[in-house]
């Protein structure tokens, strides 16, 4: 009996030893390492567009600074009221801006300067009238995505403008003359005004590897006139210059593959006068902007969405059977 108890005690002690006394046998460990491999990306990738849009309430103060966050190379300002839109490139010097809705030469007291942090406006009612809200969009050039430049017209029937740095997909021309600003995208049948018109065959006539070709339209190539251009490339996930055929369907999404921060549409209609329309991300609701002296309009560019922009049924953007060209830009640079 006592032997049994002793054996039980021994067994119990062994179990207690196993359970209670920790047996930690760690591995032998050795390491070797290389530290400090460093990787830094470029501040802006080729093809990325630094852009911003915003809005301000007019206050009629001359020389008013509008902050953008960077030094822009191209700025468009449009009132929500029935006032003409205006545009300016960084190649334009002095207090000069191109009205985009009428046949008007460069004019002072609109966008007065492009600065390191934005732009300044005068107190003309097209840019700064008390009671108006103004919408602006500002772009920074990029060697592979967007360029601005200038040339002096020579009146020649064919003139090549080179040095853009890429083959443009869309070109805007702003002349310092009493002619309208115009634009043309690859595939368009003519060069069109920003506002209503049926196009010209002697404006921008072709696109080349490093620029574009002009005819002798006074809108783009009058002898001795200073012209300034803005050229956009098509860059995946950054800039989409494209086309679609209207179908008259409301709330139609036009795929861009990214969320545009700005969209511009121009009909390629040589029979019916249609106006260009645009919309920056700063514009809310279903409204969009024209370039002429028209207040905010509806049923055109109704929304900028995650992978497309939405159009209504207005003939400026979606008439059944008409071809439309668009510029959609994503804010793709920090």
């Amino acid at each position, binding site marked *: 009996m006592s032997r049994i108890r002793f054996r039980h005690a021994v067994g119990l002690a062994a179990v207690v030893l196993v359970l209670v006394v920790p047996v930690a046998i760690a591995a*032998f460990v*050795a*390491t070797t390492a290389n530290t400090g491999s*460093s990787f*830094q*990306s470029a501040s802006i*990738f080729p093809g990325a567009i630094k852009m911003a849009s915003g809005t301000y309430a007019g206050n009629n103060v001359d020389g008013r600074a509008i902050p953008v966050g960077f030094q822009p190379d191209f700025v468009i300002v449009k009132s929500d009221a029935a006032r003409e839109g205006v545009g300016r490139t960084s190649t334009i010097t002095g207090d000069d801006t191109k009205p985009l809705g009428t046949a008007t030469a460069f004019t002072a007291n609109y966008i007065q300067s492009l600065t390191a942090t934005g732009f300044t406006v005068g107190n003309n009612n097209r840019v700064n009238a008390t009671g108006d809200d103004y919408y602006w969009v500002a772009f920074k050039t990029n060697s592979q995505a967007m360029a601005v430049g200038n040339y002096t017209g020579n009146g020649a029937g064919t003139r090549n403008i080179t040095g853009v740095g890429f083959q443009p997909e869309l070109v805007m021309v702003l002349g310092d003359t009493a002619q309208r600003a115009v634009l043309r995208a690859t595939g368009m049948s003519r060069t069109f005004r920003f506002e209503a018109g049926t196009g010209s065959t002697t404006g921008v006539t072709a696109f080349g590897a490093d620029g574009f070709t002009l005819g002798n339209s006074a809108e783009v190539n009058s002898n001795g006139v200073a012209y300034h251009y803005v050229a956009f490339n098509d860059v995946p996930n950054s800039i989409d210059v494209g086309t679609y055929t209207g179908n008259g369907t409301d709330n139609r999404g036009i795929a861009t593959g990214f969320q545009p921060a700005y969209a511009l549409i121009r009909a390629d209609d040589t029979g019916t006068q249609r106006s260009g329309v645009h919309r920056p991300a700063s514009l809310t609701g279903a409204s969009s902007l024209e370039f002429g002296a028209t207040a905010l309009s509806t049923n055109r560019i109704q929304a900028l969405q995650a992978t497309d922009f939405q159009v209504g049924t207005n003939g400026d953007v979606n008439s059944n059977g008409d071809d439309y060209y668009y510029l959609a830009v994503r804010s793709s640079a920090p």
Partner: protein
Amino acid sequence: MKRRRNLFVIALLVLLVPVAGGATYAAFRATTTNSGDRIEAGSVSLSDNGDGTSLMSMTGGVPASTTSACIRVSYGGSLSSTVRLHGTTTGSGLDPYLDLRVTRGTYTPSTPAFKSCTNFVADATNYIGAGAGVIYNGTLQGFPDDYAGGLVDPLPGSPESWTNGEVHVYRFEVTVQNNFAAQNLNATQAFRWEARNQ
């Protein structure tokens, strides 16, 4: 006789107490800068051919920018070990936008200077279905940070038992993704090989 046997059992238990309770085998660490450590009971030792500089450096990276470098890792322990790769990342967030491929191989026929991938020959085995010798193919962010999640060399299902004198070369290739979200960011990475004999 039985009494003697009981005494023997008791004595054995008494002997076991200090052995079991006190034999906590601490981890012995050896690095390339401390190669003189010797453990009579057995050793685990790793070293590389680094020269004190970092393996890779990239500045102004844009989509498709690539940098690569090779490093030779040698095993000098007397105990066989398995090895895992891992390393911590710091920076402003570029690591999700960097693709990293790690390929294991050898230098044949000769070993070039540190970082050079001249004479690098990948292992013939397609370990993970990403090509000969590739043992990791993902983002830098996905590269494991610690031993627990570490990359078993060369493959979790068939870890290699490293033995004294064994040498492997690792080629690291880092490529910037085509993603605008990667702009103006940075990352700093450590690459660490850790050998354990169990």
